[in-house]
């Protein structure tokens, strides 16, 4: 039979030599291995104090972006909800009233915007579908809860804060190539 790897060893039940029979050398060998591991660097990361660095394109909890003047970018077109394979996104649209121009960038906005984090599979199709650069996935982790209800995140959680200091950085996901892809007229969402 052909060997699959060169690591395989042929097993034999030949008579043990004296040293093998008294086992002590084998025990000492095993002890030296465990002692070596005793001084080895630990593989564990002590989580709350120490965090593992995420990948640049990690897809975690969503954020609804504001533009530079602090207006909501979302126009409640519903493309994200259509693109969502898990059907996690729902929204209710409303028309912008006169005098609300400092709040909403477009003439139409979402009064209710909900993502069910239990349904969401964090695929990132929503941000790809968004023509207004309004929704992004970030490197934040969705917090655990005791009940199902709190997992339906509304605008109160998803929308990024007004304070420029508190804005959520998505530059890692909003690269130039991404922008170019989004503005390409060949794709349906830009037509």
């Amino acid at each position, binding site marked *: 039979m052909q060997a699959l790897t060169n690591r395989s060893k042929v097993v034999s039940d030949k008579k043990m030599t004296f040293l093998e029979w008294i086992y002590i050398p084998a025990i000492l060998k*095993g*002890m030296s*291995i*465990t002692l070596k*591991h*005793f001084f080895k*660097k630990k*593989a*564990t990361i*002590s989580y709350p104090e120490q965090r593992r660095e995420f990948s640049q394109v990690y897809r975690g909890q969503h954020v609804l972006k504001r533009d530079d003047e602090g207006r909501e970018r979302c126009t409640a077109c519903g493309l994200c909800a259509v693109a969502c394979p898990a059907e996690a996104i729902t929204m209710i649209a409303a028309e912008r009233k006169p005098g609300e121009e400092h709040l909403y960038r477009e003439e139409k906005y979402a009064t209710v915007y909900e993502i069910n984090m239990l349904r969401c599979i964090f695929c990132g199709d929503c941000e790809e579908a968004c023509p207004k650069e309004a929704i992004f996935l970030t490197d934040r982790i969705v917090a655990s809860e005791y009940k199902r209800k709190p997992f339906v995140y509304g605008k109160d959680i998803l929308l990024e804060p007004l304070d420029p200091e508190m804005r959520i950085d998505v530059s890692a996901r909003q690269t130039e190539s991404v922008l170019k892809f989004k503005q390409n007229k060949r794709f349906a969402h830009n037509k």
Partner: protein
Amino acid sequence: MDWTLFIYKTIFLFLILLVTLLVAMYSTYGERKVAAYMQDRHGPNRAGPFGLLQPLADGLKMFMKEEIIPLSANRTLFILGPSIAMTTALLTGVVIPWGATLTIGGREFSMQIADLNIGILYVFAMVSIGVYGIMIGGWASNNKYALYGAIRAASQMISYELAMGMSIVALVLTTGSLSLHDIVEQQHGMHWNIFYQPLGFLIFLICAFAETNRAPFDLPECETELIGGYHTEYSSMKLGFYLFAEYINMFISSAVIATLYFGGYNMPFIDQLGLSPNIVTMLGTAFFFLKIFGMIFLFMWIRWTLPRFRYDQLMNLGWKGLIPLSIFNILATGIYYYFTELK
């Protein structure tokens, strides 16, 4: 009645009890740390700095657990089991010489609670009674797994006590005394018995592992086959007593091994330094504890290296391996002394 001596002995007795419990308590912590480090983990590090309060948390947990005595169990024996295990584990510390003599106010105080002239036999007696704790506990549980565990423990202890006793016979041939104090005094300097009785030491060590029910001989509490062995039905602090007794046993057997084979409180080259006798005694005791901790580490090291024996392998090793070997050891020692004494 000599009241000074009485008070001194009482204080010393409680001190030893306290130290034994403390060491056993932190052995549980040490065990988990050593295990973790050998498996590239951190181990307990949440309760207090470096997880040092973990044993307290464990103890508290044990106390808070529901106390269950099975309906079909024999109540008296069920409670007696862990009590015996704990008591006998603690009793052995009485004969161990923890240090040389302290001179306070012109009086000499021995750092040994009772210098019995049959100290080794006393240790053996206590260890043998310790088996009853496990046996009675397993029997009283009225559970077949517990009974299996108890039977295993009993037969294992009986098999290994023979070899252990015979390795001690060879040691007694070299020392000529059964008193632990005399044995330690004879090992002054670097005349440690391990150099005179290497084979005896190896046999004694293996038997000590078996006697304390530690891996690789922890068959009585084999989780995979026996659920928990003799303590399957136990809960709350009664279970805690069994587990704790194991750690006390480990500490005491480390102390016995250090006394018999590693010179006890003797420190090499200490006489050349010209220190006052009391300081020498203190240093000796510290060094003795260092040896004990080394032995405890060896116990843990072995546990996290070797897999558990199969039952027939255990019996084979005991009856066909260690007993003939220890008889050979006695013969060799006897013949050696016969010919050297003749000259």
